[in-house]
């Protein structure tokens, strides 16, 4: 599969990978994520998915950069719009399709759904819905690695501008700085928390100004520009890994979908759609590829086809798999069976 192949090639690659190679690699993950999510949306419209579908359209450039610079052993705490980053980090496509399509073989086995999936065993944390809560969890995972004497690791946690207003986010960010763990927080300001525009979310001029108040290093970012995402987020990861203080990156984009696919996003104003940050990062990246002639149109078409094939395969596999069944389920919330309580 693509992700396996590329992950290997990533670690094998000489340290001075050509920026263009990185750019193209990232682009392909973005393409895969977009293809996958478009497919999920059409399944959703066809009534084939239970629960919500939440996609990262317009945020793939930021997200892919979050996953791309992490190595085995690093900690990744993605959120709901991080398909590109999850794939780049190494999440198999089957984890996605199995979760959305309700296969009992998925990582959450039908117990949790859609974007809540994760594999903490492989350092991809499984988010709870409560926004902000995963920051301190990432801090703890990093402390653990330090306790165990590991070196050179880093953690990256994603957040939206909405989630940044949650108390848990504040406590997590502050404790990261107190513990001086190698954490990168990538905040994506997509200008809405569900239907709520920025002016009812916060009142500071720029959210990156939060960094100084915690002792983080802060960077702003045009999230529609893949090159910038790779440079800024890659740089933050590098600095955290090298022992610099925790890093905050704030990217500006527009969410190019509803909050979830149930949402027509009619509250998004026409005015904001004309803002520069409203560009589609995938199209911008494609334009860059064309302008710089990084690859030709034929290759692009091939990549597109390849992505579609992989997505179709992963969906077909998951669709053939049995769902979980209530009467076969192991109804036990704890791992130590001898301690199970059994009230009526």
């Amino acid at each position, binding site marked *: 599969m693509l992700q396996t192949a590329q992950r290997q090639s990533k670690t094998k690659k000489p340290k001075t990978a050509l920026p263009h190679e990185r750019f193209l690699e990232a682009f392909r993950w973005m393409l895969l994520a977009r293809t996958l999510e478009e497919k999920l949306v059409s399944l959703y419209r066809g009534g084939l998915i*239970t629960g919500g579908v939440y996609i990262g359209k317009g945020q793939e450039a930021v997200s892919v950069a979050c996953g791309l610079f992490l190595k085995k052993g690093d900690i990744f705490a993605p959120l709901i719009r991080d398909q590109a980053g999850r794939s780049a980090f190494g999440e198999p496509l089957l984890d996605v399709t199995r979760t959305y399509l*309700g296969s009992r073989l998925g990582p959450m086995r*039908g*117990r949790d759904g859609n974007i809540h999936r994760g594999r903490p065993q492989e350092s991809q944390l499984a988010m709870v*819905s409560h926004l902000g809560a995963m920051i301190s969890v990432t801090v703890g995972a990093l402390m653990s690695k330090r306790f165990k004497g590991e070196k050179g690791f880093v953690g990256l946690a994603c957040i939206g501008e909405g989630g940044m207003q949650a108390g848990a986010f504040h406590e997590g960010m502050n404790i990261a700085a107190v513990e001086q763990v190698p954490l990168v927080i990538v905040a994506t300001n997509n200008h809405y928390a569900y239907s*709520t525009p920025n002016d009812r979310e*916060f009142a500071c001029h720029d959210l990156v100004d939060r960094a100084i108040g915690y002792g983080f290093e802060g960077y702003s970012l045009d999230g529609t520009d893949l090159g910038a995402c790779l440079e800024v987020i890659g740089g933050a990861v590098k600095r955290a890994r090298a022992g610099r203080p925790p890093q905050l990156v704030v990217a500006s984009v527009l969410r190019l979908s509803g909050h979830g696919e149930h949402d027509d996003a009619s*509250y998004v104003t026409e005015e904001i759609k004309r803002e520069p940050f409203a560009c589609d990062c995938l199209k911008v990246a494609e334009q860059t590829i064309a302008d710089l002639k990084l690859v030709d149109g034929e290759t692009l078409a091939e990549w597109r086809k390849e992505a579609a094939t992989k997505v179709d395969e992963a969906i077909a596999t998951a669709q053939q798999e049995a769902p979980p069944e*209530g009467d076969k*389920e192991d109804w036990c919330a704890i791992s130590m069976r001898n301690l199970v309580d059994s009230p009526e």
Partner: protein
Amino acid sequence: MSITYLEAIREAQAKLLRDDKRVFIYGQDVGGTFGGAFKATKGLAKEFPGRVLNTPISEDAMVGTAIGAAIEGMRPIVEMQFADFSSIALNQILNNAGTHYWRTNMPVPITVRLPSGGTKGSGPFHSQSMESIYAHYPGLIVMTPATVEDAYTMLIEAVAIDDPVVYCEHKYLYYHLKADKLPTEGLPTGKARITREGRDLTIVSYSAMVHEALAVAEQLAPEGSEIEVVDLRSVKPLDTDTVLASVARTGRLLCVGESFPWGGVTAEVIARVTAEGFHLLDAAPQRINAKDTPIPYHPNLWSAHRPSAKEIARKARALLRE
């Protein structure tokens, strides 16, 4: 005309905003043209400018702000996007709102709306029923309306009450439940309703589970069993008298709740009935709750996790045989 449980909640809020200047609505996405994740405030921001306000994702501050506003004379309604997120506001609800009258002699008339309970595909963090946690702590009124009419009148009453009210509205009932029209009056808070009369077994329930209990009562009627269904309406105060009177008639008690099994409403009802009405019971009182795991996402698991009419019928039959 027909009106849903959800529309009743919207209408109650419209009426409250219309009739009482002290009322405002505060919550994530309640304002603008959007009107809330479930549209319970749809159109209200436009109709009542400046009084239906979007908030940041800050449940603690949402409730804290409401408390402060109530102290200075307003009657805020706070909408949690899902009951599950009220865990973030729990400290303000329990320790600030719940204790304020006791400490200072000044009540805080806030209403916190919790879209509660399970629906298909919602998973562990968008399905919870938290009434038992709020009822455990002193100082709060906890409402759990099961009908369109109650959804309407109880929300109006919640805002009228000088003490803090946790109003648990069931998401499954939002669209599933319809009434012909809205009532002008309801039962007073703290009074349970005998939803269906019967002489053989009392099923005590509340919120969405009342309807499962009713279905079972219908189902067992042809077998000659007359089941009485009691809808608690509010779990705090809990109308022990009505429950005891029913058990006095039937001699048998089954409590059904959708929440987790350890503690909670069903345990509380049984403890009260056995303490005060032990001699009334002809058989061991029983209860049915959800399973003791997080609420699963997959519909197959979800429907096995929550109490079902099937399970209630099985247990009711067993109780009737005793």
